[in-house]
């Protein structure tokens, strides 16, 4: 990889983007936080709407605040919510990121908080401008993948092409993450054979069994009307296609939301809730939530596959969209980065498109914007959830 420059961080891997975050710790402070963030394109706004304490959401926001692509953080609190902004700030500071807290009730309401916030964020922008640049190797990258708006082309075109790109990334020393265990029903044995050892195979079966139990109790399997119109008949058919994103390398480990991959290799991210006093609760409400979970594990780039079509991007990490349906690509090409529909038309091989995705990931890591970045997409989703970090082992 020819000289790609990234942003050095005091702890953790280097970033490929250099954002300042304005994070609201409850819905009541979201408007003020968004107003603060609107002062520049390098400031992004995100947060958690809930007022009562949710460890999962707090852990997720700390992970986002200490992400490689983030240089500094402002926490915007109302002042009376359960989420403890000071505790979050301590954890973000401990990870070497400049962080400040503003409380709207103390600061004097909307306008004083916005002006103080803009002053703080302006200073953070100037400071992060001076972040030292460092050369980035493929082994510095964590890449996540997700699919959304899948149809029957996904499993034969976009997903296996991403799988090929993942193989190339793993072989070059990157850490790559796939998730969507709700779309692994029916592939448990195939996936278990890909694990590095017997303990991990057992853990993987437990994670997929949990996904099945969750689906039964919901009761909803992860297949929607658009999938069915697009030619997918059953969850297990969708699963086989979705699993193709993982490529062919051994699965090195299973992580949970906000946990970084411990080394290079291929990792499965379990985003499904663990049983709690609220039973499972709702999970994985949309694609942006899955992308958020991947980013919380440190992913600096997301590769997103679609067949029906999707327009989303994300805060923090660029989302590179791969479209496997040639008709959708023709209709929505302004939102897409890679045309995997050529595989369906017989114009390109899976390996060719996989190589193209790999090259695009490196280009995006080098600063080239994705279609969603050019369009200004900054979706995010942080729901209430319960996850026990030790539940699978």
């Amino acid at each position, binding site marked *: 990889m020819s000289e790609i420059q990234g942003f050095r961080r005091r702890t953790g891997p280097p970033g490929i983007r250099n954002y300042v975050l304005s994070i609201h710790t409850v819905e009541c402070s979201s408007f003020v936080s968004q107003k603060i963030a609107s002062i520049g394109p390098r400031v992004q706004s995100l947060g958690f709407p809930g007022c009562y304490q949710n460890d999962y959401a707090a852990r997720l926001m700390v992970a986002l605040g200490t992400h490689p692509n983030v240089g500094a953080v402002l926490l915007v609190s109302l002042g009376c919510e359960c989420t403890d902004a000071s505790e979050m700030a301590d954890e973000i500071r401990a990870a070497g990121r400049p962080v400040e807290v503003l409380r709207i009730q103390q600061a004097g309401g909307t306008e004083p908080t916005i002006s103080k916030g803009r002053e703080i964020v302006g200073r953070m922008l100037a400071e992060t401008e001076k972040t030292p640049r460092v050369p980035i190797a493929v082994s510095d990258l964590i890449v996540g993948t997700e699919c959304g708006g899948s*149809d029957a082309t996904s499993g034969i075109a976009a997903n296996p092409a991403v799988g090929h790109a993942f193989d190339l990334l793993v072989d070059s020393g990157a850490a790559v993450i796939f998730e969507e265990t709700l779309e692994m029903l029916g592939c448990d044995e195939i996936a278990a054979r890909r694990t590095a050892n017997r303990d991990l195979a057992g853990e993987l079966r437990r994670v997929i069994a949990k996904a099945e139990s969750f689906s039964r109790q919901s009761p909803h*399997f992860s297949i929607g009307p658009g999938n069915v119109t697009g*030619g997918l008949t059953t*969850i297990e058919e969708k699963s086989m*296609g979705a699993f193709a994103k993982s490529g062919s390398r051994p699965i090195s480990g299973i992580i949970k939301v906000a946990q970084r991959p411990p080394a290079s290799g291929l990792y499965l991210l379990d985003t499904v809730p663990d049983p709690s006093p609220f039973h499972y609760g709702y999970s994985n409400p949309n694609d942006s939530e899955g992308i958020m979970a991947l980013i919380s594990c440190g992913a600096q780039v997301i590769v997103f596959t679609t067949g029906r079509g999707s327009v989303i991007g994300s805060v923090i990490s660029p989302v590179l969209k791969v479209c496997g349906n040639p008709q959708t690509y023709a209709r929505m090409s302004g939102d897409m980065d890679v045309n995997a529909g050529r595989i369906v038309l017989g114009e390109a091989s899976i390996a060719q498109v996989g190589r193209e995705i790999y090259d695009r990931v490196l280009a995006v890591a080098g600063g080239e914007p994705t279609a969603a970045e050019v369009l200004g997409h900054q979706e995010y989703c942080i729901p209430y959830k319960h996850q026990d970090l030790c539940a699978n082992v």
Partner: protein
Amino acid sequence: MALDAIQAGTEARVLGAQEEASVKVRQEIPFAHKVALRPIAKGESIVKYGAPVGIATTDIAAGDWVHTHNVQSVFAARQGEQAS
């Protein structure tokens, strides 16, 4: 999987088969939907990607459109529900 929409009555070429193969399509197949390459009896597995991806809920003839009207998920079947 149909790489393009196929009209009923078309003799469709099967790609990726060991030898030259074709199937006479009995109903219109929308783009990317499945067509049965051989007769499938009620209760038999539907195989795609070399793996079972559902169970036939009725006898399916070669050339039939294969979708939610004649296939059920093994998970939904275990739950005693209709396939989605």
